[in-house]
């Protein structure tokens, strides 16, 4: 249906065009009109992001999930020297595009009231961020991928640094420099691949398809390159022990910033592992998989325990994100279909659940302006609807059957069990711990006695918040009871990935 239309470019660049439109309108309008514009900016941004979500839905319906390989491919000459502007989606990336376009309108809706100063700039930053995130998932050129991947730092730095909490400067610095240091190592590796491709393939290329199918990198070098990519993705994931930027960034970021951070930015790392580490460096992946397993298990257990000790709600959820990302890395590096499917499923479901949890924190933060667990308690009497939503997402976070969290964790553990029962056992321990901290949080905040007198006149969620939380709740349950909605789309691409992986590792005598 879209053979002749650059639909991926449209989806990617409509938010950017919207951002430019807002900037332009701000420049031409008079001072009084600017106030008005600043009030209306969230609505404009909402319309734009909804349109993008609609396009992404159309794209998904038109996507043929029975075909492996990339679809809707667009190629334009770009920098020359084998570096082209190439976009395309396969069964893995299309879901992340959908997730991004789904969460962004919700974020914009949620920030409409909670952001007071410089609304227009905030919306511009968010729309640019959306373009960059979608671009990361759809780009089929290594340099283009890096461009989007790295550029995400700019709006995110500004969102945390300008609209963040008290300690925002420290957090935004830490976020920026941590991820930058990781990414520049990947950049070195990308440059090496670019340079190597001209020797090995005859013509330099950064076309991902060409690199995956034709480039064969010597085993010893693969390890170095793998480590360089790993440095970047591990920081982004974030994996233990380079996760320390995440709690700080989460705590200081505004609600919507946290949602995007947990919901999508953390997935860039996992997506990178799937797209690049497994396909470009299969031998190194196989060889270094034990490293990933142990790091994942440590992440799952250790950060779950840390999460239990937190006094700050956002920090607790941030640590729980690190633990859940541990399941993702574990699943991806099992190299079997359950593990990979589970890893992808876990990423999507975590995107929805953690996003929802941060929205929930945002709801009470907007009313009370504190995130201390001890300041809450007994909310169930004042905010029954809120308590119900929070309950659902807490259960999903634990991985209760019937919610989407269960499917992802279950699948990754099945995958891991085939590789090593010990790993699966460690991960299962982590699931228990996750119940410990999540239930602890829920009990302290929602149940118990109401000690804080300020809570007396707290209001239950309003319509806007209901609109934000309902779709998330719906999807959490839908994906919990009907997982094949997702797995059907991903399965062919995942199988294809595994076939290629096995062929590559068998070829090199492993």
């Amino acid at each position, binding site marked *: 249906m879209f053979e002749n239309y650059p639909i991926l470019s449209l989806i990617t660049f409509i938010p950017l065009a919207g951002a430019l439109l807002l900037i332009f309108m701000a420049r031409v309008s008079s001072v009084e009109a600017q106030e008005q514009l600043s009030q209306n900016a969230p609505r404009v941004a909402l319309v734009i992001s909804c349109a993008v979500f609609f396009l992404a839905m159309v794209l998904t319906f038109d996507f043929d999930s029975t075909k492996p390989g990339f679809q809707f491919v667009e190629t334009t000459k770009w920098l020359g020297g084998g570096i082209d502007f190439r976009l395309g989606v396969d069964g893995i990336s299309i879901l992340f595009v959908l997730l991004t376009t789904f969460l962004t309108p919700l974020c914009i809706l949620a920030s409409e009231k909670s952001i007071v100063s410089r609304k227009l700039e905030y919306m511009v930053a968010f729309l640019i961020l959306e373009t960059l995130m979608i671009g990361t998932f759809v780009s089929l050129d290594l340099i283009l991928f890096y461009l989007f991947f*790295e550029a995400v730092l700019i709006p995110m730095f500004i969102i945390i640094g*300008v609209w963040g909490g008290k300690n925002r400067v420290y957090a935004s610095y830490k976020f920026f420099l941590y991820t930058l240091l990781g990414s520049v190592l990947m950049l070195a590796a990308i440059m090496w691949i670019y340079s190597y491709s001209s020797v090995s393939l005859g013509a330099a290329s950064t076309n991902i398809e060409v690199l995956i199918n034709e480039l064969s990198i010597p085993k010893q070098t693969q390890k170095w390159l793998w480590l360089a990519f790993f440095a970047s993705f591990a920081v982004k994931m974030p994996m233990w022990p380079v996760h320390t930027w995440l709690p700080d960034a989460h705590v200081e970021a505004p609600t919507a910033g946290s949602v995007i951070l947990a919901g999508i930015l953390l997935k860039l790392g996992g997506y990178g592992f799937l797209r690049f580490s497994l396909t470009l460096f299969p031998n190194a992946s196989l060889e270094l998989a034990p490293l990933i397993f142990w790091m994942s298990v440590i992440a799952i257990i250790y950060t779950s325990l840390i999460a239990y000790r937190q006094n700050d709600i956002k920090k607790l959820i941030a640590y729980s994100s690190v633990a859940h990302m541990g399941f993702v890395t574990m699943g991806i590096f099992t190299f079997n279909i359950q593990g990979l499917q589970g890893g992808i499923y876990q990423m999507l479901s975590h995107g929805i659940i953690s996003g929802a949890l941060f929205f929930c924190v945002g709801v009470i933060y907007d009313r009370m302006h504190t995130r201390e667990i001890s300041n809450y308690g007994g909310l169930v009497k004042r905010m029954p609807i809120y308590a119900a939503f929070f309950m659902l997402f807490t259960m999903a976070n634990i991985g209760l059957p019937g919610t989407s969290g269960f499917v992802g964790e279950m699948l990754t553990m099945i995958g891991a069990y085939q590789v090593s029962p010990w790993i699966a056992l460690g991960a299962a321990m982590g699931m228990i711990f996750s119940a410990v901290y999540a239930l602890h949080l829920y009990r302290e905040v929602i149940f118990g006695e109401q000690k804080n007198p300020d809570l007396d006149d707290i209001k239950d969620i309003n319509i806007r918040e209901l609109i934000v939380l309902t779709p998330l709740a719906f999807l959490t349950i839908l994906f919990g009871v009907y997982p094949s909605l997702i797995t059907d789309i991903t399965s062919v691409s995942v199988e294809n990935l595994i076939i290629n992986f096995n062929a590559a590792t068998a070829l090199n005598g492993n």
Partner: protein
Amino acid sequence: MFNTITLFAPQLVLAFFASQLLSTGAFAKKNISIGVRNFSIFVLLGYSLIGFVLGQPTGTAFKGALIIDNFSHYMNLIIGLSAAAALALSKSFFQIEKLDRFEFSILVLYCTLGMSIMVSANTLLALYIGIEMQSLALYVMAAFNRDSLRSSEAGLKYFVLGALSSGLLLYGASLIYGFTGSIEFTQISEVVSSGASPGVIAGMVFLLCGLAFKISAAPFHMWTPDVYEGAPTPVTAFFASVPKFAAMALIARLLVGPFEGIVSQWQQVIVIFSVLSMFIGAIGALVQVNIKRLMAYSSIANMGFALVALSAGTETGVKGMLIFMSIYVVSVIGIFACILQMRIRDGMVENINDLAGLSRTNRSLAVVLTIFMFSIMGIPPLLGFFGKFFAFIPAIDAGMVWLVVLALIASVIGAFYYLRLVKIIWGDESEHDFVEAPKTLRGIALISSLLVFPVLILPLVSIPTQSLISRAASSLF
């Protein structure tokens, strides 16, 4: 004869009008600095474009003393345009500071003439003449605010250290002449490729040291922060941009011309310069509070990055250097156009904390400066990233992955202080308002920020630009 004139037309235009304007200014009854400046800007624009208008003739002039090739055409273009921009920047500053003398424009013209000889030099003598012509003008420009202690100090410091570097350079040139028996690059190249004696190598090292001083590469960078800080800001803008590029181009011509036979010898020297510059620049900048000193250290670091490209000694290396330096020059001019807007009612401010809260008081300046900071940090999709990308690829091709990793780590360290600026602009509470900046400054800041904004990586623009630069680079080989 006519052939020589066509070849030499850009330089002739400059020389003729510079002398004309000088005598006009000297005999004029009243201060005609505004007219001279405007006319000089036109002359510079004409100079930059005339080579292309004449169809890019190539060949040697004056019995081989100068060589005009696509490389010099490209360099003339960039030098002329950025010198014109730097001159346009100076207008409001000198008027408000009551320093507006017509000699400044003439000095810029002569300096540009020196640089255009540098980039076309084909003998050691032409090289020296070009460098000295450029430097003498720069010394005077540094001390242009002669009633200010800092400015005079900057000029004197620059002059003394510049004389030292000229000494090194001449000593190197004489060694090379002594051991090869020629001052012509082509003949030196022949002698060197058939086996270089230690004398030639020593001469080459001296020559490179002298030139390293001109690009302020570490360990010859000491003058940079003081001179940048002391000189009047428009002069600093000029210092930081054009002469750096010209000297870098001269180094490129030397390395792949006369010394192409001894790559392994000069590679070590360039790599040492490069690593030292990157780290001294990046770490030195961390503690600076004066924005001009910050830019000085930043330029030291950036010269290190450009040298990474050159260290490969290949055609892509030269191309990478040209791309990197072109982007660098555009950014520097833009950043200085922003710095020159930092004027409160009492005069110019130079402390970076004076930028606090800029995003509230002057949003467009804040956005423009932020774009520059992220660009010079090397964050995609801004142009600075592509500069670094094309500069580092050749080094990877040449097998120097470690050098590139070091360069990338240095740029992460560098990111810290650029981020500090962004933080101050967007995060801190404002202390004072800047007065409304003149149109020229805002215009130049806007144009250059649009240039580093990813407009230039659109395929429509990137492909012709790259082919222009490729042709320039390949003409050296």
